[in-house]
């Protein structure tokens, strides 16, 4: 491509963004040392529960969706072909 790459798409920027993101992640966990997180059911008051729970539930959902996708995914024209048959 002839035009100049947008600064946001440069590898250097992306590396910096990852660093920034990691620091923010660490800070949100560390913040729990300062501010008390009230747990309604004891477990959710544990240290870094939000972080672990958020990550794990997303992991499970993505893997589950992926598995279900094997069963449910069809080509884009799946219904179109059928309509032509009819």
């Amino acid at each position, binding site marked *: 491509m002839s035009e100049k790459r947008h600064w946001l798409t440069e590898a250097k920027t992306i590396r910096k963004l990852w660093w920034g993101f990691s620091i923010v992640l660490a800070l949100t*966990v560390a913040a729990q040392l300062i501010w008390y997180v*009230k747990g309604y059911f004891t477990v959710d008051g544990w240290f870094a529960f939000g972080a672990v729970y958020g990550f794990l539930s997303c992991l499970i959902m993505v893997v589950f969706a992926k598995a279900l996708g094997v069963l449910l995914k069809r080509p884009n024209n*799946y219904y179109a072909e059928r309509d032509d048959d009819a």
Partner: protein
Amino acid sequence: MPDLISPALIMVVAAVAIGIARGHLRTAIVLFAPLLTLWAVWQVPDGVQGSIQFLSYELEPVEGSPLRRLFATIFSLMAFVGGLYAFRLAKWYELAAAFFYAAGAIGVSFAGDLISLFVYWELMALFSTVVIWCGGTPASRAAGIRYAILHLLGGVILKVGIEGFVVSSGSIQITPMLAEDFNSWMILCGILINAAAPPLSAWLADAYPESSPTGSVFLSAFTTKTAVLALILLFPGEKVLIGVGIFMVMYGIIYALLENDIRRILAYSVVNQVGFMVCAVGIGTELAINGAAAHAFAHIVYKALLFMSAGVVIYRTGRNRCTELGGLFQTMPITAVCGIIGALAISSFPLTSGFTTKSLISQAAANEQLMWVYMLLTAASAGVFLHAGIKFPWFVFFQKDSGLRPKDAPWNMALAMIIFSAICLLLGIFPEWIYRFLPYEMEYQAYTPGKVVFYLQLLLFSGLAFFLLLPLMKRTETISLDVDWLWRVALPRIFNLFKKLCLPLKDLSSRSETKCRGFLQFLTSRYLGQPHTADREERAVFARSWPIGTTSLWIAILLSAYVLIYYI
């Protein structure tokens, strides 16, 4: 008498006027009628505003309450901003249909009895179908027909329930009930079909993405949210709804994760978000009902915003799949920023309307010690960030460079998106602006340091999961089967199978028909004879010519038999 005029009628008149007017006058109607309606909504005092006699029933077309006004407000506001977004691009009939549709939603908001509610309900079903047809493609035509069939079916179920309820209770009042008998179950099922609840949830993701880029903005707002209002009015605290809501929440996430079409991702996330509200109605406490109402309000704004952002992308690029898009942020900054604000709001990020409204529902679950509900809703909040919060903006505006360099949104579309983005942020920063209009008084603090830390952890680590799992989420050129497969493929297949099974029967019947015909032919030629045979001897028994003497003998026999029978 003016008390009996529902603000919905202003929208009905406007919808008709849109069809008659031309040029600037039409634009003026599109922009001012919703504002006039909004004003009228706030003139409706609490309580029933008079009644009209219809058959032996007392109809109450207008009943005011804080809850009803809240919903009517957001519907009018939606009509205004939607009109602003659409008026230069949409055809006049799409705008007129959208206004009728909005009128139906506002009418349901104020309906004081079940009959008025049903009339407005069907008005919505009819004109939302027209809005879908305005997509103008063969696919939208077919999807519109499927949508109409399902909604008319839902209407029939609702009507059966209402009739039964009216006959058994003698009242047409809208009163809270529980699903205990056949009638209340029918009413509940009729409403849940409109809420896109399982098992007939597929209509939403089937139909909405087939409408025009402007049509889907209107569609995202009205049908499911009037269903939420109807649930709040009729079934608060119905425990079945908790399970239904949780299912919808999870179903929405999983299907949105599988999707490639950007508007279908958003359509599935409508189901997901309505699931939160349905669950809240099921919990049924004052805090939960407040949560459902506030969340419906906020949801209409950010979901319309997301559909607007997707609409601009489709309008400018003509493409609607994640695999064909990417890198658009470079030339569409306004659309990208507004889309991201909508995405953050739907993910209930702190400082957005989603955070201040959805947390009411989680809090209500926690207060009721519903641990599993709370945990699943929290997991779902993480999942929303995953499927809508990051996925939508990432695949559309960032991801890879698709090489597309479309222009940003036209001024009216940009303005509409900016208005809704501002509302998303304002309700997030000043939650009391929405809290004081909620149906119940409550003591609730939206922002505590602990809560913010918890949600930031939850959401940001979901974000981490998204970027780490990106290889697993690579978009494919596919669609995913949903329950609509049952009526789009399975039913025709069963029908064809049945036809095939019937083939031998058809053979049998055609063979016996030939035999029957042969037999009848034999009988007629035997007794009545062949036509046009001149010779007397060749004629059959009854067709021969007989001597006159034989005839008079027969007459004499018959007459004497008659006389004999007469005397006996």
